[in-house]
């Protein structure tokens, strides 16, 4: 029996930041629904409310005609709704069978019924096409297998509606094919599926219907067959894509600012070479795990690197720490904003000036000079905040990101590496950041943009380096930059 789910004016805020502004739509039973939207559109939050991980501030969730409010994910599971997160919910030290039955252990009197759980686990594993011993430690599985374990877990709980959040983000093309085959099979068995993604080609292939969300609002729904990819993209962004990006400037042809020849980061990147000119925006494309982030962490001295030659403005350099790199005029913004980019608990000022305290210390810290720097950054980078003394966590995602970018620019670097600069940022802030990056390049800096969003790389970069399995697969010039070309190189099917 398929579920009939309706959202009615669902509102959700995290602290001062409202992420859902009254979302209403129905999920047709027995469909594979593609839920589309940019990062920060609120699609994950909405689905977390459906699956009992978050509670809504107001609105209604109607399931089979009854208004529901799930207290936790167990309650949602009891109703047949299971969500598979981007970050898996598996305890690495438990076995596969233990994970599948975590919180729902089968009992025999007072004792755990190990045999029955092993048997049942083997059955659902077979159903998802995963041929492993249920007693395997989860730690030993690769990512794709963990995902299948999550699906098996959902099946063991008799899921009637399965929500998958960016399920292919970390999968190879073959693994993705296997997942799609499984989705089709589940669909035939009557399981409804909500497929959250911003990969339009996948959505086009696997879903019957799409719902588009933008900035916490419902935007549109349509049968998948009736819309083109271009139309989907425009709906997600809310304007013609071409408006999102600053007009393209000609690629600069001056001398190289940063040259890297044959650099290796053991375990991640092998024999990587590229060069970056002053005023150039150089993109780095690749799948998760292709070694892009790790390459630059190696370059910065955050990981051991070996071999090769690095030249900055013609002079050979080698950085043992980010401090040395910053001194030479190279700074890096991590893709992990909360974990590595910003001190979310500390005030805005402390975050902004952390990399450039030398300028504000004579030798005692000059708090007024720090504050001036903050006021200047707020104006220059368009950071919206109503209290300059509040902690960074009070800002919205987009404004946090602007603050983080302002921070790595404080030491006035010549080369800036921005890793996923628009992750978790709403559409308006995205556009601001694109124009900001262009301005930084026009000022004569060299900019590296690592991104998983092909549209972004195509719209913004002069050239794009494609990495695959730790090696440079191709370096594409502006004239070669198309989505098809990039995907072919990224997945190694060129």
């Amino acid at each position, binding site marked *: 029996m398929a579920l009939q789910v309706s959202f009615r004016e669902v509102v959700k805020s995290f602290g001062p930041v409202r992420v859902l502004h009254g979302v209403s739509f129905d999920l047709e039973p027995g469909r594979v629904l593609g839920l589309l939207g940019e990062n920060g559109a609120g699609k994950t939050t909405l689905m977390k409310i459906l699956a009992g991980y978050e509670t809504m501030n107001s609105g209604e969730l109607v399931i089979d005609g009854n208004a529901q409010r799930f207290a936790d994910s167990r309650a949602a599971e009891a109703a047949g709704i299971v969500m598979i997160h981007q970050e898996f919910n598996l305890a690495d030290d438990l076995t596969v069978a233990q994970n599948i039955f975590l919180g729902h252990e089968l009992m025999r009197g007072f004792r755990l019924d190990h045999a029955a759980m092993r048997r049942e686990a083997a059955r659902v594993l077979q159903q998802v096409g995963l041929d492993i011993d249920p007693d395997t430690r989860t730690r030993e599985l690769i990512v794709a297998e963990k995902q299948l374990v999550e699906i098996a877990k959902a099946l063991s709980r008799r899921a009637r509606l399965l929500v998958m959040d960016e399920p292919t983000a970390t999968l190879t093309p073959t693994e993705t094919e296997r997942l799609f085959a499984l989705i089709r099979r589940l669909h035939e068995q009557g399981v409804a599926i909500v497929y959250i993604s911003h990969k339009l080609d996948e959505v086009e292939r696997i879903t019957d219907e799409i719902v588009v969300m933008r900035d916490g609002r419902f935007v549109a729904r349509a049968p998948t067959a009736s819309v083109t990819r271009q139309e989907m993209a425009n709906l997600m962004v809310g304007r013609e894509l071409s408006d999102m990006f600053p007009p393209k400037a000609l690629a600069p042809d001056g001398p190289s600012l940063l040259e890297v020849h044959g650099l290796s980061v053991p375990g991640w990147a092998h024999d990587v070479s590229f060069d970056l000119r002053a005023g150039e925006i150089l993109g780095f494309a690749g799948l998760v795990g292709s070694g892009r982030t790790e390459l630059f962490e190696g370059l910065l001295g955050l990981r051991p690197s070996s071999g090769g030659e690095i030249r900055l403005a013609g002079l050979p350099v080698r950085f043992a720490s980010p*401090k040395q790199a910053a001194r030479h005029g190279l700074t*890096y913004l991590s893709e992990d904003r909360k974990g590595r*980019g910003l001190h979310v608990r500390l005030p805005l000022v402390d975050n902004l000036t*952390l990399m450039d305290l030398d300028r504000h210390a004579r030798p005692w810290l000059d*708090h007024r000079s720090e504050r001036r720097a903050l006021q200047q950054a707020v104006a220059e980078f368009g950071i919206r905040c109503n*209290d300059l*003394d509040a902690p960074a966590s009070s800002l919205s995602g987009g404004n946090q990101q602007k603050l983080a970018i302002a921070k790595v620019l404080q030491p006035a670097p010549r080369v800036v590496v921005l890793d996923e600069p628009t992750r978790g940022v709403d559409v308006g802030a995205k556009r601001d950041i694109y124009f900001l990056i262009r301005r930084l390049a026009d000022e004569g800096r060299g900019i590296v943009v690592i991104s998983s969003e092909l549209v972004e790389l195509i719209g913004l970069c002069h050239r794009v380096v494609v990495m695959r399995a730790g090696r440079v697969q191709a370096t594409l010039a502006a004239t070669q930059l198309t989505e098809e070309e990039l995907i072919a190189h990224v997945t190694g099917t060129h």
Partner: protein
Amino acid sequence: MSQAPTDTAARSLDAALEPASKPAFASRLRRRLVGARPLIGLVLVCIAGQLLNADFGTWDNVMNVLTRTAFIGIIAVGMCFVIIGGGIDLSVGSMAALIAGAEILLMNALAPHLGSAASVVLVGLAAAVTMGAVFGLAHGLLITKGSIEPFIVTLGTLGIFRAVLTWLADGGAITLDGTLAEAYAPIYYGSLLGLPIPIWVFAAMAFAGAYLLNNTRYGRYVQAIGSNEQVARYAAVAVDRVKIVSYVLLGACVGVATVLYVPRLGSASPTTGLLWELEAIAAVIVGGTALKGGSGSVFGTVMGAVLLSVISNILNLTSIISVYLNAAVQGVVIIIVAFLQRGRR
């Protein structure tokens, strides 16, 4: 963001003062009130003390309490840096005992060779502070370069320091020679402008500590590391060096505290400095610093240290609760403070 109960009180107070149109003002006032909590607590306890026993507020008693607070207070100032930086040091009590013993042995040995007792004492002072700094350096290196948890490293040295002292003392006490004791005594018993020397030293260390934390690059880096070490590392902060320096500072603070403590009894024994680590950590926590690091204040720490010794002083002066329950009352205070701080991020 969840808030502690007192925040709610502060907010309604703010609302009365200012219409909601000025959130910046309201939140600034709220932050001020949060920072002043340890002081408010101390004032309330002092009022209670005065009501319970009129002797509490006398000059002599106040000086007595503050002088006794100086040892723990000075150590707590150093501990404050280590804890804000996300670390911990369990060894400070044992370290104080070993430094005291070694300092006395050194001074006794030097007495026949150096001319005046005063110069022997000066050498002793310098040696004690240096020793503390060196112990701190060892901790810092083991924790950063050796990648061992600070809890484990200092749990290890807690045992080592006290065992070495016990061995040096042969299980008994190490006592300072008579003439030296006389020359050394003013450091604890003397006073300047009416205030005992230990209070001056305590005040100086506290002001220096507060200035270091709030007005130098180093202080900012300590807070950044405790708040999120990875972010600090990615922001080009020399994380290892900053951490090592925080342990060296704490070691030096222990050295200074020991220097003040030695003339009080003129000896060191296996029970010297027993449980000082807990008192110092408690002072830091009561002062509003989060045990997981990132934020805290030297001012709060000083208030915390004074508050804890005022409580034990009140128990001494009154007979409501037995003095033997002193540690229990302090324990209750710590738990109450932790309860009030829960959920504050």
